[in-house]
């Protein structure tokens, strides 16, 4: 079986690089933590890898807006490399701060064609509460999405840990377009509501929606389904013992061979299996 090579970015305040590298290894990938500057200086090449992960953290302290400065470094210094990576059909994930970076570089949601143009079309801004918070949310996945990362997922619990997670777009048409394209990959949902909330665009009350995101958006993907970003942290529920209901016997079980597996691991397995299927 081919072992996909995963580049996990770090440096400048990214801080979920260790666990993000670990979860890819658990599902059969080979992770390398790579400092962004190693790609910019040419010491390492993005093209050496099959998957790129931009983990959570506080790149540049979130000053001037979360993900902005990191996004600029990538937009201005790594543009061609990123373009080639996407063109060769390799998946990218941005989690939390990584999602903010991908939105600020313009890779998410991206243009309507499949040619990244590095133009910012959306933003992630301060939570309506004005507070950074760490709390668990329930996510509902869009079954009609072509996103390779979320294949087969329906609903999972995982933590959000952010102060700037409110997804906004400048006008109603852009949002409608995003929805029509099935690029709204994952949304916050009321766990008491058994129905998929994909038709409910009304912003859920705090804390069901922790930030007041438009249309309860928690994560989106680009037109190709290869680039995916989300504010919540699926890597933080790689094991059932990390679920807050674990001591109550209520942590959702996994359907895989790993007995203690948590619900978040499938996202990373999807990308690893996707690469394996192309080899």
């Amino acid at each position, binding site marked *: 079986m081919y072992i996909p090579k995963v580049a996990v970015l770090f440096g400048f305040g990214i*801080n979920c690089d260790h666990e993000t590298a670990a979860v890819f290894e658990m599902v059969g990938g080979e992770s390398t933590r790579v400092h962004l500057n190693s790609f910019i200086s040419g010491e390492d090449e993005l093209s050496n890898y099959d998957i790129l992960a931009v983990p959570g953290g506080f790149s540049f302290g979130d000053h001037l807006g979360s993900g902005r400065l990191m996004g*600029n470094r990538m937009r201005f210094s790594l543009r061609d490399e990123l373009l080639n990576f996407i063109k060769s059909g390799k998946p990218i994930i941005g989690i939390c701060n990584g999602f903010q970076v991908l939105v600020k570089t313009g890779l998410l949601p991206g243009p309507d064609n499949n040619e990244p143009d590095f133009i910012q079309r959306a933003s992630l801004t301060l939570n309506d*509460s004005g507070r*950074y918070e760490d709390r668990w949310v329930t996510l509902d996945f869009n079954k009609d999405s072509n996103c390779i990362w979320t294949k087969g997922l329906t609903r999972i619990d995982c933590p959000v840990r952010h102060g700037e997670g409110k997804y*906004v777009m400048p006008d109603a048409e852009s949002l409608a377009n995003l929805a029509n394209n099935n690029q709204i990959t994952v949304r916050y949902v009321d766990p008491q509501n058994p129905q998929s909330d994909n038709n409910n665009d009304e912003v859920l009350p705090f804390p069901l929606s922790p930030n007041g995101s438009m249309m309860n958006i928690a994560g989106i993907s680009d037109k190709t389904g290869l680039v995916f970003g989300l504010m919540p942290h699926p890597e933080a529920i790689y094991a059932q013992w990390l679920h807050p209901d674990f001591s109550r016997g209520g942590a959702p079980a996994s359907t895989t061979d790993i007995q203690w597996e948590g619900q978040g691991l499938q996202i990373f397995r999807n990308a690893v299996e996707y690469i394996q299927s192309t080899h």
Partner: protein
Amino acid sequence: MHITRVEATPKSGPGLRDVRGDVVRRQLSADHNLDFSSVKTIVGFLINSDVSHEEIAARADDLFADPIIEHSITNHSFLGNREIFSETPDAVVSVGFKPGVTDNPGKAALDGFRTIFPEATPESDISTYITYLFYGMPQNTSTEWLSSTLYNNLIQRSFVTEGEMCNSGNWLMIDYPEKPPQEFKTPAHINLEISNEQLIDISETGLLALNLTEMQAIQQHYRNPEIRQLRQSAGIVEDKPTDVELECLAQTWSEHCKHKIFASKIHHTDLETGEQAVIDSIFKTHIMKPTHDMQNDVDWLLSVFHDNSGVIAWDDEWSVCMKAETHNSPSALDPYGGAMTGIVGVNRDILGTGLGARPIANTDVFCFGPPDWQGEIPDNLFHPSRVLRGVHAGVRVGGNESGIPTINGAIVFDERYLGKPLVYCGTVGLMPRKLPDGRESHIKTPSAGDVVFMVGGRVGYDGIHGATFSSLELTEESPSSAVQIGDPITQKKMIDMILEARDLGLISCITDNGAGGLSSSIGEMAEYTNGCRIDLAKVPLKQPGLSPWEILVSESQERMTVSVKPEDVAAFEKLALLHEVEASPVAEFTSTGIFHVQYEQSTVAYLPIEFLHDGVPQLELESEWKIPEHKPFNPPQTADHNTILTDLLARPNIASKESWVRQYDHEVIAQTVVKPFVGVKRDGPADAGVIAPIHGNPRGLVVSCGIAPRYSDIDAGAMAAAAIDEAVRNAVCVGVDVDKIAGLDNFCWPDPIESEKTPDGKFKLAQLVRANRELERICRAYRLPCVSGKDSMKNDYGKGPNKISIPPTLLFSLFGDHPDVRNSATSDLKHPGDKLYLVGESLEELGASELAFMMTESGQAAGIGGNVPLLTDPERLFSSYRALSKAINSGVVKTAHDCSEGGLGVALAEMCIGGRIGAKIDIDGTGKTSTWARLWGESLGRIIIAVSAQNNAKFLELMTGHTTTLLGEVEATTQLSIVDGFDELISIEVNDLVTSWQGTLDLTGGVA
């Protein structure tokens, strides 16, 4: 060079809002009951560079503003811009930093500016500000006062426009904070052949915090003919110190660095028993000796006391370390910056342990004045609610941005912390037992000839005299240079780089730059090789012009001192370049026996290592114990226990801290198993933090703490014992392996040296003696080694009759092994039908209880006196802890909660809140005492557990021989009912408990 102004302000429209403005509006409402109709904000940048206004304007939306959500404007202000702000505000306040104060957004903006304008002059700099526009201002609100709630004049500037000036568009614009030039002074020579009065005068005016004996010891040093000869051959003034030397000695000999009170010889008198004793160093006698004795019995105590934190072996592959520090004085003057430097500072202690450990968890414990304090505030200090907000924000930003989860802590309130808040910050570290090159990571390996690098931030005027300043009491004139703001991102980059350097085998020795700056960090490391030579001219500065002594002692943040073998220098520098971390070779280790400091070619300090580290004379002090007098606490004949319960739950010391704690990232690193809040709605209190830091491996670590300052009012010895027992109880509740636990003792005391300004010094020192005697007794009984600790001994404000002294306070932190995190218990009640038991026994101990304080404050009782909880038989308790821990670790018990403030009643209420479920309890048989003592008393050694019917017999078998009393059962109701035999005491809805518990400290003002 010229200044370009760029401003950004949020766009309005459906779904968009000015969140920063909303937060200010909500806080004014929550803290001061003032309702504004709206508050808007503008973020401003003042760019000092050679890039033209037009070029900057063309790229403003690439950097300074987010075009999706913000408007931007270049070279103008939005103030008066009718398109954006159609209405005239009632008042406008702009807040920016004073010159030279760390401006983190400005630093980040400059970094982004260089990405876009790589050709801009290297001297470019950016300063930031925020402008608040107030609309619908309530009548009689003073704009000056409004401004004062938004900034701290020690570090910030504020520009205010109000009333008519707003109408006429006459805005007061904030300008670029030009740094005044620093004047470089060549080292002065200080004549010490002067009178004793003059010696003291030098110490006081120079903020040296040295007493007469110490000044005389220095005087003697320079009289020694051998020393004079040595100095002559080194080419430095022979018979007197340079200012560099005197400052260096003052920092190294400060109470903060040398712990002179803990090292002193104490003549102790106990007026209660008639005992007379001499204690030669409390530290060596009561802390170090017991730990060293225990080191003989176990093989996992790798490094104790001598390094930046204590290290224990966790398993064959990994070791863990922990350290806790206080940052009280800086937090009093600037709560935000003081607390932030506290947390990022203790992170560096972990990074500086052995050859470098990775910080993986933070703890924080705060002691404040009452958040709703109505009385006077001492000059130069802040209202407790503002201290709480500022300290919390500083710790939140410091921890969250560093990517270190905050997994455990506490907040304690008492009027006396008005004079000085206590800000304890702790960090747990993880390191591989062996590095790839085979060296054991907990052992430093420096040799003469190694090159010493300063890594991370630069040295500035900020942070001069922190160590000596914290060794004095606070006054109105306390200096602003002792206050700093941390820069977590610069530090995070440094941590990433240093851990890579460690794994590449490039580090031979490492320590952090904290109190005393380079003089302490290089000075301490030079003890290993017996000498060093520093060139201060090689130290990178934030601004030119600092004098040699200032460079040597400045405590500017985010710096580590790292030594590297000459052959590894190139690789080390290359790694620094990759991570964009500044690393400058500033010194080398020698074996000359001399702490040798040069500025370029000239020698500015030449101190024997031995004199520097061991020259400080031992203090001799007197202590005298007599029992403090209090009116006894007698509860009323009859009472409504339902009301007592809801009142206790609402007491700040007991009330939920969730709204504050949830703002800390407690889950980064994907390891936190028992989180700070647990239960159905994840809002019940956790007893301790549990983490599984090796991904995929369920082996865990437990981190807990204990603190009980109220008991000091009766006996500081009982206070110390209670703190230790609480930390251990908390850890047992989640299932720690009691045979592998280690502790940290952090003492915060009022000045215990008798003097004119401290007439009761003998008593305060006796309190310290009693606390340490109990610490030794309990730690020996619990096989609990103290592996690291710290003391802060001058926690007083002012002098004379208005002096405020804190209650003597020991924070005891604990870290220990958890064999399998899947068998962790939590405090929330789980299933109807589970049996509830009390492990331990209630005694008649209501003295200094939360109940006694509450009833005394409300006039229902005469005083708080009486029996304070004591640990008469700790060995017996410990064996019951071991049995219970075994029951949890075998999966038999899933629910456990310790009884502390508010006793059994409050503990049961908290368990019901966590489970959102009822329980039926009978406290008959839980102790041979009054109902009051059994229901509300705080006797130590008590834990409530719940066990399923299926595991009941197995639990009882495991607890054979230990005091275990059936309390009742979890019920499928929402009602907590407590009886004492035939007497009904409590019958209350769980939702009412939730409301009382959660209301008091939620000062967020909601989300709307």
